[in-house]
């Protein structure tokens, strides 16, 4: 019984450490519970989709898809177009997805081919590919848009007449998905106040007598995320999903079983890229502003760090990991600067701390994965050499 308990802790060391850090940092930060819950709900809605897009390449044994920034860039191009045309609301979001999809598919196919040429070092290759395509993206957005690619809205263009501004307001689609089914949780007192301010609109008003504070829930976003989780569970059971898992186990075995390895790997990357495109659009509709040249940069790093903090590894990740990760990672994100300020008197320390944790956790996860794999390889080699007598 006790042994089993320790096993669980050992297998989930990373989430456990983060729960411990949070347990110290939350009281230090001095935030109220309702504030934290509200922030977390917002961030779960904002980030989950992006993180979920990482699952399929992991399933296919391609490691963490650092190339997901390609999809994020495709989504941003879609958003730039709808901003230029002035398409707002849900139609605007859907249209942005529609425009982003073919771009994401093309980039995904490109990425897949490149990764097939770099088997065994997919991660570093997809990482550098992200930088490379970032260069192409910047060239497109900064020089071609408004010159060759028709963008006319003066709110988007730089004053020189071509190239998109650094910050683009997405006021037309800001929080449209989050507020599609407006839902509020509060206590009876708060409900009265809320109705006074907002009027008796079409709100789902859930009243909990013991609840402290008022929380808005992005219900529609959660529904989309839930649907997506169902999709992933279903996808694992399809023929394609089974093929991917077989390739993830062993490429050579999959190949001899007649599975088109290279083609399936490309499909895995294409799906991931397209989903990252939608994920970035959902992310940005919540943020409400597009930092044309930075928004996609951090999408990859933060998503990967969150997934790993959730207890995933380079070769194994589940939907649970995604949600545990997004909660723990963003909990730290919210409380670290305040905790740093209250502890040492400098918010900057907390700021750097969370950056350090993001990179550190990725480094540790990569090291643990490679270490384990090499040990297994070594053990396999020994047992091959020495028959049963080899000391493993």
């Amino acid at each position: 019984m006790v042994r089993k308990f320790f096993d669980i802790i050992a297998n989930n060391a990373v989430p456990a450490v983060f729960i411990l850090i949070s347990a110290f940092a939350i009281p230090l930060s001095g935030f109220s519970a309702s504030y934290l819950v509200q922030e977390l709900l917002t961030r779960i809605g904002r980030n989950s989709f992006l993180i979920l897009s990482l699952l399929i390449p992991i399933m296919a044994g391609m490691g963490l898809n650092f190339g997901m920034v390609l999809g994020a860039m495709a989504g941003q191009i879609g958003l730039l177009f709808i901003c230029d045309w002035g398409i707002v609301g849900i139609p605007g979001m859907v249209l942005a997805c529609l425009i982003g999809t073919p771009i994401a598919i093309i980039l995904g196919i490109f990425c897949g081919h490149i990764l097939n040429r770099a088997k065994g070092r997919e991660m570093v290759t997809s990482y550098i590919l992200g930088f490379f395509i970032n260069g192409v993206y910047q060239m497109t957005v900064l020089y071609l848009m408004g010159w060759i690619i028709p963008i006319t809205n003066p709110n988007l263009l730089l004053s020189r007449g071509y190239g998109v501004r650094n910050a683009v307001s997405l006021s037309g689609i800001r929080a449209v998905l989050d507020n599609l089914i407006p839902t509020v949780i509060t206590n009876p007192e708060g409900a009265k106040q809320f109705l006074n301010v907002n009027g008796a609109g079409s709100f789902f008003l859930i009243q909990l007598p013991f609840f402290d504070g008022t929380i808005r829930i992005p219900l529609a976003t959660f529904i989309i995320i839930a649907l997506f989780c169902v999709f992933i569970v279903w996808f694992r059971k399809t023929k394609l999903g089974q093929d991917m898992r077989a390739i993830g186990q062993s490429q050579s075995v999959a190949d001899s079983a007649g599975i088109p390895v290279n083609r399936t790997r490309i499909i895995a990357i294409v799906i991931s890229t397209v989903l990252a495109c939608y994920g970035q659009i959902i992310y940005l509709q919540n943020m409400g502003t597009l930092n044309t040249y930075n928004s996609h940069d951090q999408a990859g790093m933060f998503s990967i760090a969150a997934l790993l903090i959730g207890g995933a590894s380079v070769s194994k990740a589940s939907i649970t990991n995604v949600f545990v990760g997004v909660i723990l990672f963003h909990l730290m994100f919210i409380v670290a600067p305040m905790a740093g300020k209250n502890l040492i008197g400098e918010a900057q320390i907390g700021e750097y701390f969370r950056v350090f944790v993001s990179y550190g956790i990725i480094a540790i996860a990569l090291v643990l994965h490679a270490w384990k794999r090499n040990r297994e390889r070594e053990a396999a080699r020994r047992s091959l050499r020495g028959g049963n007598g080899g000391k493993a």
Partner: protein
Amino acid sequence: MFVAFLKFLMRWFQRLIVLAALIALGVWLFYIGREHQIFLDNKTSGNFKALEQINVSVNGGEISELMQRERDVKKVVGPKFEIRAEIFDEDGEIVSTISKEIKICFSKDIMINLPTLAAGEENFIVPAPK
């Protein structure tokens, strides 16, 4: 051989239909989701003299009171909108009211010349100012 060719053709035909449907969906989204700026202009245009005062509301929104030579701008989403206007004389009495549905279709921003609209003429839509 022939059957294989037919199958091949069928496949591409299906793909083409899906593609066309997606493009149609895109166009439809563009059509229903576009935001337009409606400039309301109470200025003399041709034979129609600027009105003393006109209260305009678009799609049942906030009412804006426009005196002579005043201009206001409203934002609407979608291909058509409803405009309601009350026209006043010098004494502040309501002379007439107008209620009209206006189609914008695919153009972006338009300007409505209110005196022309009040006179019941058709050519009240003029190009939006830059």
